[in-house]
């Protein structure tokens, strides 16, 4: 009975061959001076749609930056993009971060959209001291871990929820309508739970009556039970956090069951997905959605950037993709000032960012500047309404009032 020993022998033989192969692969090639950027985003699986948008936006930005001469302080060094698929799985994200840092020797990391992937990957970057730019991943916690190398472009979720309520208050004032009963419906994940926790606080402060607080699995195949619950709770305002598939299903089902509400407010994500408008169509009319950016933003260059993006990829820029686009310009700006590929210098440059102009600054606010935690201080949000004003359903900025599209009168409450 010597067989098991034999078997162990077999396995070791294979192990040996494999490690040899691995060793050969790890030899690094000398290269010209470039800035290597590792991007960890979901390119397959349930979040593939957002990942693709982010990838396209990054690509467009980097092309522009490189075409304009790259990083001049580094002798015109080009930005080189490396992408990898996280599949929305934390363990894949971590493995890829390790690889990007140790094997590909990237100078900067960006990603990862899913907060669950962003947490552990930023921890990896922090350990190696590699700067990590987070375009979108809204959980407050990401910039509150005490990490020195994490910089977030997007607003954090406490700002999103704060602005949703501020918007509501402003609209009530403007249209002289008092809304009282409020319902929360959100995907049962990190993102939805994070929003819901803060909504609860804000509703208490704002003196709203919470009539429904309902998480749902975003893998649900039938949302009519949820819609029935909403209908029976009879709220004035419905606040939503949804991924794309469920946002579409929920919107259609709400229409099917003729649920009458005074306002529906989304939280970006699924509601901002380019597929959403196409798939929900008329049913999405009058829906409000909070986003970082909208095509009608009154900013020089925004329209051109969107035209270019749309002609290349077939759909509009959205909050997620604009943050990714901007992130590349923030990076380029920091590199220019750092004039070095040393991660410490890059980090310092990022920390002192004050980017107020340039091609990337197509966002509604005035500048990108990071606070001590690495959060973009000025990040602000706008509220859009989906409506048809003659050119099919489109997203129209309505709030803050100074950003409202000229000539548009928001429909509030919903008829």
């Amino acid at each position, binding site marked *: 009975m010597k067989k*098991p020993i034999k078997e162990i022998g077999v*396995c070791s033989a294979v192990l040996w061959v494999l490690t040899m192969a691995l060793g050969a692969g790890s030899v690094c090639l000398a290269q010209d001076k470039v800035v290597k950027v590792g991007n960890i985003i979901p390119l397959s699986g349930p979040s593939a749609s957002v990942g693709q948008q982010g990838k396209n936006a990054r690509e467009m930005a980097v092309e522009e930056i490189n075409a304009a001469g790259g990083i001049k302080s580094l002798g015109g060094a080009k930005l080189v993009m490396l992408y990898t698929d996280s599949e929305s799985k934390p363990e894949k994200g971590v493995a890829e971060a390790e*690889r990007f840092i140790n094997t590909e020797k990237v100078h900067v990391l960006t990603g990862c959209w899913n907060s*669950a992937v962003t947490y552990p990957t930023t921890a990896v970057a922090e350990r190696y001291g590699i700067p990590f730019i987070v375009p979108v991943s809204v959980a407050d916690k990401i910039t509150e*871990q005490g990490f020195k190398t994490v910089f977030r472009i997007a607003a954090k979720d406490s700002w999103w929820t704060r602005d949703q309520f501020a918007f509501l208050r402003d609209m009530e004032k403007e249209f002289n309508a008092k809304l009282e009963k409020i319902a929360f419906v959100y995907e049962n994940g990190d993102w939805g*739970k994070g929003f819901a926790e803060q909504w609860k606080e804000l509703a208490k402060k704002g003196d709203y009556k919470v009539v429904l607080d309902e998480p749902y699995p975003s893998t649900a195949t039938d949302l009519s039970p949820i819609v029935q619950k909403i209908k029976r709770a009879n709220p004035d305002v419905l606040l939503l956090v949804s991924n794309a598939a469920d946002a579409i299903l929920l919107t259609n089902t709400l229409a099917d069951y003729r649920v009458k509400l005074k306002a529906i407010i989304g939280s970006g994500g699924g509601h901002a997905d380019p597929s959403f408008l196409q798939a929900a169509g008329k049913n999405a009319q009058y829906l409000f959605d909070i986003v970082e950016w909208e095509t009608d933003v009154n900013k020089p260059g925004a329209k051109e950037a969107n035209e270019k993006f749309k002609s290349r990829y077939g759909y509009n820029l959205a909050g997620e993709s604009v943050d990714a686009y901007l992130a590349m310009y923030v990076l380029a700006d920091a590199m220019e000032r750092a004039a070095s590929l040393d991660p410490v210098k890059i980090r310092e440059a990022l920390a002192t960012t004050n980017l107020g102009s340039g091609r990337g600054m197509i966002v509604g606010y005035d500048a990108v500047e990071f606070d001590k935690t690495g959060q973009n201080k000025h990040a602000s949000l706008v509220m859009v309404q989906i409506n048809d004003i003659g050119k099919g359903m489109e997203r129209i900025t309505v709030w803050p009032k100074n950003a409202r599209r000229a000539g548009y009168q928001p429909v509030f409450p919903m008829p």
Partner: protein
Amino acid sequence: MTRENLQKAFLTLVLIIVFGLPLILRSPTYLHILVLLYLYAYLTTSWNLVGGFAGVLPLGHAAFFGIGAYTSTVLYVQYGVSPWFGMVLGGVLASITGVMIGLPTFKMRGAYFALATIAFGEGMRVMVENIDHLGPFNINGPRGLQIPPLNVGLANLMFTNKEPYYYIILVMLIAVLAVTYFISRSRLGYYLNAGGEEPEAAMSLGVNVARCKLIAMAMSSFLTALAGSFYAQFSLFIHPKSVISLDLSFEIAFIALIGGRGSIVGPVLGALLLRPVSDFSRIYFGATLPGLHLIIFGMVLILVMIYLPRGLQQPLTKAYNGLLNRLDRRSR
């Protein structure tokens, strides 16, 4: 040299290589990949006690992995208890759960058992996603738990380098391989195999099939949970969708079947093929065309199963035997 000495020499050589590897392979990337490879080999070997020897197909082992990960993490983060202790406690809890779930399910045949264990694993995930606080313990529902990377050291099973993790999981893997080796030669091993293949015949030969399977399940779930705690300390972040996922349960079963179910080296061989395929196809193709790497992974599963339905273990064992024979003959 005799055949036996040749084998001993070979085994020693392998041990020297795997223990010496971190000295040559300095890159944390590859150490990271290897740690995960060993982890999966370990998990699959543990799974093999039930899925291989006892002849059933459990597809819910992620639940035990999750129990291990959550137990040690909750105890460490909230009470400062050493993860080593949490690891053992998680193992015991998983063991109890394993027996409880095994009691009714082992009566079932093939497909039912597989589906029941899927439901068990998924049910466990849904539970964890729905519970924020379990008594005094904060398990944080769908948001997962983070382990702050403070207090590095062996006592806390937390290190800044990959090497300690590498050696710990390597020792765990060798230990679990040794356990399987001894079980396969013991009465329990014989009984498990017999009960898995022909339960009625086994019973008539004095084998209490159900009890043997339960013992195997208890061991398997215990060992699986240990790996869960290790993983939590290695990745410092756990959440239900990653540690109690159907994907994980499936991947363990894939590795076992690709490597060769019920053989001792099978899990290791399976991990040696599938992990690199999964990692390197993602690295090389993940960004070029979306999903291409998963197509490759799927194709590998299909092709290996079509051409080697008994797993990689069969031809490789044969080749290895041939090699030994030739060396043996030449030395005489």
